[in-house]
């Protein structure tokens, strides 16, 4: 039960360490030093809170995650076309294609919104070959079991990441209204994706999992929150993650690959026409190198 695990994993570091390996604690610590933005607002019932990220910063952050998700699905789909995942059932293949199309649509539309906010969507980049091995400490495209496990982690984290920004966008007032609406439109679709992958794992792999999160140990972010008026430890409520927490988790993936993995593919550059770390205009910290 989630409330039982709550008592075990009160410290977020321990929850993260449980699933992704203790090595994540190190980048989390480093990032906490590197990030320039202030800590997120406390979740108090005060109406005098101020946003910790501007709508434009939220879009840049979301676009990074969406580019990563879209890239992840592109590689997964490619691996089903004669590669290591050629044997996955049609039901799973069509879902990977469909979800990948959704993420690509999010990239397109968030890019357009970022332009209207004065930002540069092409400047929000991911490495040509993200280090997806960081998710499970092995190639997630090597077999269906690992692919779906990694996909579940990524989608659940996406849900929590969008949820973690709704207060910032609300507190931005009129300036945040369009981005808030767009974020809400995406947030629940990510939840549908997460549920769909969970259903595949339960149905195809006989995994002990459901479309919803039954247990804090199922996710790589901190599901349970003490001192919140919202009972996140109950499975009827999904948890959130702050930008700092999410970036700490994805930072090892955003680390440029220095050695080849089985799915490394430079042809992916077409999706990142100006993939150049030096052009990155966001406030993201430089990828932490060499920790893996």
């Amino acid at each position, binding site marked *: 039960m989630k409330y039982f695990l709550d008592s075990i994993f009160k410290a977020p570091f321990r929850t993260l360490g449980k699933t992704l390996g203790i090595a994540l604690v190190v980048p989390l610590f480093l990032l906490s030093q590197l990030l320039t933005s202030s800590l997120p*607002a406390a*979740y*108090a*019932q*005060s*109406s005098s*809170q101020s946003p910790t990220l501007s709508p434009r910063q939220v879009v840049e952050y979301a676009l990074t995650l969406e580019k990563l998700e879209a890239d992840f699905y592109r590689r997964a789909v490619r691996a089903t076309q004669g590669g290591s995942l050629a044997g996955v059932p049609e039901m799973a293949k069509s*879902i990977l294609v*469909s979800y990948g*199309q*959704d*993420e690509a*649509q*999010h990239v397109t*539309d968030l890019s357009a*919104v970022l332009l209207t906010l004065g930002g540069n969507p092409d400047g929000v980049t991911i490495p040509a070959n993200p280090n997806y091995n960081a998710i499970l400490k092995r190639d997630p495209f090597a077999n269906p079991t690992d692919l779906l496990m990694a996909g579940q982690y990524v989608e659940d984290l996406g*849900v929590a990441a*969008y*949820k973690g920004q*709704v*207060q910032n966008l*609300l*507190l931005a007032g009129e300036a945040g*209204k*369009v981005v*808030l*609406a*767009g974020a*809400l*439109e*995406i*947030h*629940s*679709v*990510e*939840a*549908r*994706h*997460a*549920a*769909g992958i*969970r*259903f595949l794992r339960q*149905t195809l792999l006989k995994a002990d999992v*459901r*479309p*919803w*999160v039954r247990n804090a140990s199922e996710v790589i972010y901190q599901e349970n929150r003490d001192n919140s*008026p*919202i*009972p*996140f430890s*109950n*499975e*009827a*409520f*999904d*948890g*959130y993650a702050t930008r700092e927490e999410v970036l700490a988790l994805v930072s090892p993936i955003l680390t440029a690959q220095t050695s080849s993995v089985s799915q490394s593919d430079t042809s992916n550059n077409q999706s990142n026409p100006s993939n150049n770390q030096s052009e990155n205009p966001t406030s993201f910290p430089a990828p932490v190198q060499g920790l893996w």
Partner: protein
Amino acid sequence: MLVGMPEILMAQGGSNLKTLTFSADDNGILNFALLLEELEAAFYPAVLKSGKITNSKEIDYLTALGNHEATHVRFLRGVLGTNTLFETKDLSLNQSGLNALLSDRTKILNTAVTLEDLGVHAYNGAGPSLTNPTYILAAGSIVSVEARHAAGVRALLDRPSTETVSDRLVKDADLNASMNPFMGRAYDELYTPKQVISAVGSLNILNNPINGSLVA
């Protein structure tokens, strides 16, 4: 665990039906969400009682969904406190309308999809109108669970987890454009409370009159 039948299923449709008046503010929105949760919380126990669902996985899912919705009801009532607009016993279900939705497995699961999809669009639509930051986080923590429900039941039916264009309860042309920067399968559009009430009405399960500035 579900203990007995919810009060709402015992309610009698009398001549003195309580009119539900939703104000266009945080309290009105939370009460509106409560109404949707009450309908969902009433539906799932009725489904299980009908005996029409026999597959163990489907029973497992629908039992969990019923528990989640009952939890949402308790949570919202707790948050609203003295601002709660109605008690569960004030709601009057149309028994023949409800029975029509319980005719067979396919009808039941498709109705569950409709209720869950509608809940998603309703919470999304209400979000930007909330003023209390804690409320929008709470709504967010609930709406993604409703989306997981929708996707899960859709999967039981071999329906796509996201909504295809033909699958939507409100067509693009009828959506409030200013509320919806994005449209299409990759998005769960924002429905106005009025659109949600119209969709609820088409299910023919609630007898109470509904009005107020929120749904005008």
